[in-house]
């Protein structure tokens, strides 16, 4: 016989925070694996060192608290660290990666009180700290060299690229007339961050949307917010602005659309607010890419929108049932 009186509901959807995080990790995995394949053991060492340092920091922080929010293996720390690492240059020094992971955990999350309390996306916060502190390391982009020469054509493609990212090249030369090939563009086989393969991130994102892990509203509106002004600008000055497809598939746009902007903690909860938030992120990414001092603006755009997320939430309340229209 039960002896406790418990409150309704007595059934549950089965969705837990741990499961959500696990599914985000699954969604990230294809792009991460491709990154490791393209950039070799140095990238693997970076991932491992960052994971170890981040988890150790998380464990220490939780040890210091009387009532820690969340637990070590609830997946939130792993997602944060993976997102950070995937946005770093693949051959970034592993000790600096470890430092970044620790920064993400401490300054990004734990100083606010732990899981669910942070105002800014921890991975993006740490990335900006690293970018400002180690500008040289953060902007040296190795060419992808697949560990195993699996596809004969792939190596030739990879060899065609050197030192600068697509966005970086446009920024330096001020010209968008650079040779672009569709296949490497879609798979991200070009100098760039560790996990930037647009097609694989898109696949992971669509799977997560289908599984209702993330809200498609943020992803779709972010892409629209960036691509619509980018297309308009490209029509006006095609010689200095990258084509929409290149805009879509370069830099961290896909990672931002499906994995970073969709972070539940730092985005609004109302459906309408999410659309405004996504549009804002997209527009800021576009503006920073075109007018900013940095070639890519995902991290800054996300942090800026994080700051206004509570404001968006409070102004985008939807109509309750029975309230006058």
């Amino acid at each position, binding site marked *: *016989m*039960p*002896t*406790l*009186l*418990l*409150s*309704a*509901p*007595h*059934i*549950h*959807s089965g*969705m*837990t*925070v*741990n*499961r*959500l995080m696990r599914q985000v990790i699954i969604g990230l995995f294809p792009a991460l694996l491709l990154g490791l394949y393209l950039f070799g053991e140095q990238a693997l060492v970076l991932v491992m060192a960052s994971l170890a340092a981040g988890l150790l920091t998380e464990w220490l922080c939780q040890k210091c608290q009387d009532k820690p*929010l*969340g*637990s070590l293996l*609830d997946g*939130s720390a792993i997602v944060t660290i993976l997102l950070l690492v995937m946005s770093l240059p693949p051959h970034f020094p592993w000790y600096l990666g470890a430092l970044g992971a620790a920064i993400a955990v401490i300054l990004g999350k734990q100083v606010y009180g*732990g*899981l*669910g*309390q942070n105002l800014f996306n921890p991975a993006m916060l740490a990335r900006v700290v690293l970018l400002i502190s180690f500008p040289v390391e953060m902007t040296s982009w190795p060419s992808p060299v697949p560990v195993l020469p699996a596809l004969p054509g792939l190596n030739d493609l990879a060899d065609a690229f050197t030192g600068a990212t697509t966005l970086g090249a446009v920024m330096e030369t001020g010209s968008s007339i650079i040779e672009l090939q569709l296949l490497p563009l879609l798979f991200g086989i070009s100098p760039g961050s560790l996990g930037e393969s647009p097609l694989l991130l898109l696949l992971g994102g669509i799977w997560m949307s289908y599984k209702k892990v993330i*809200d498609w509203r943020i992803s779709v509106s972010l892409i629209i917010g960036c691509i619509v002004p980018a297309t308009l600008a490209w029509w006006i000055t095609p010689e200095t602005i990258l084509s929409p497809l290149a805009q879509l598939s370069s830099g961290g746009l896909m990672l931002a659309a499906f994995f970073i902007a969709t972070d*539940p*903690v730092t*985005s*609004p*909860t*109302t*459906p309408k607010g*999410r659309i405004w938030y996504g549009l804002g992120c997209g527009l800021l990414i576009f503006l920073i890419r075109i007018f900013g001092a940095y070639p890519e603006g995902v991290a800054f755009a996300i942090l800026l929108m994080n700051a206004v997320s509570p404001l968006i939430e409070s102004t985008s*309340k*939807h*109509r*309750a*049932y*029975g*309230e*006058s229209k």
Partner: protein
Amino acid sequence: MLFSKKLIKGGVHPVGQKQLSNNSDILRLPPPKRLFIALKQHSGAPAKPVVKAGDKVNAGQLLATGQGGSANIHAPQSGTVEKIAEHSAAIPGGGKQSMIHLLCDAQPESKYMLPPDYVKLDNNYQSREQLIDIIADAGIVGMGGAVFPAATKLRSTLNKDVDTLLINGCECEPYLTCDDLVMQEQCVQVVGGIRYLLEACGAKKAIIGVEDNKPLAAQSLIDACSEDDNIEVRTLPTHYPMGSAKQFIQALCKVEVPKGKRSTDVGVFVQNVATCAAIYYAVRFARPMTHRVVTLSGAALEKPMNIEAPIGTLISELLASCGGLKADAARIVVGGPMMGHTITNMNTPIMKGTSGILFLHEDELPEQKSSPCVSCGRCVAACPMGLLPNAMAELVANDDLEGAAEQGLSACLMCGSCAFICPASLPLTQYFSYATGEIKRQKQMEQKAQLARRLNQQRTARLEKEAAKKAAAKAAKKAARAAGKRAPRKTTKQEV
């Protein structure tokens, strides 16, 4: 799905679990030895008993009259009133209630006591008021969930213009199949009751809404009302909480009941299917509401099924009729799993509003441990009332009840959709029911304090007045005495 317009806002899709109990006929129990009929069957004041210990009663005889928002209570079986005393009740939070202990006759003498002028009753009411009176006498209450006296609800339509009668056959709570089985087995009675209800509420047409996970029930009703042009059966998508009155109206009539208004204000009257069958029996056969169909289900139960049982049957006896438990019941729930409450004592009787008793196994239960809120917004998307459960829960957790009320707490249906979907397993509904209760309590305290203040003021005023009067009288006497000393007695007499 992505582009189809949803009929109701928010909502969730819990696993139905209807197949556990909907594949066998309703079981009718032989009369139990004892019945425990609670005087307080639902919200409102307890009914006033009209029998006393030792009285012999017939089946269908009035046991207690409704007062202050409650309905009449009748004897389900013939027998002897043992006593009227406290007995454990299957109410939220447990506890005891005053109940009529009825020792049933082993061989019921008559099925139902029919009034001598019964023949006149049959279909022979002269007016809407008379029809409603018959329903009131039979002690019929809404069997869907709110358990509100049907006659009281019907009387409120007398001075309002009701256009459509909506009959709720959604049964959106998982596990429960009692309405499903009633619709299948008693479709003729349900439709008969709808015909009476159409007259009683003055509506022009009736729409029966059935969720599409009950095709057999829908088909039975379509067959049963094939002769009626003004009764229509409509299937609705299976979507919790479709059966909540406000959402049901929204789905069928595309209107929302404005905040603070009732369904009759938008020209609709909602009643549950099982209530319709009860109204049919009451009007056609002068049979009061003494029985109901209860779903017994859950993975811990040997043979889940529906039982038509007399009101007052002990849950333990119903359990025995279902073959007992086959596993440990980690939780016993009265009502549906989304909104029902738990009990720990099975030695408690069913009441008019008991739609189901669930014996849930450990595996069916939710995660008990909550994790922190990650503001994923699933509760916002799931709220059928368009509220912000995450924001309200945070305010309640910080004891800001006023803030929660401003966010629309009073509109909360306690449907449990938010807590069902919450990945952090936060007890959101518990927060809201606590806050609602606490606000009510504070209001009552405030009213009490106001009353005390007013009484005190009145008392002080009265005392002051009396004191003033006394002083005046004293002064007058003194003056009179002084005057008497000076003036001759005669003048005083003249003054008087």
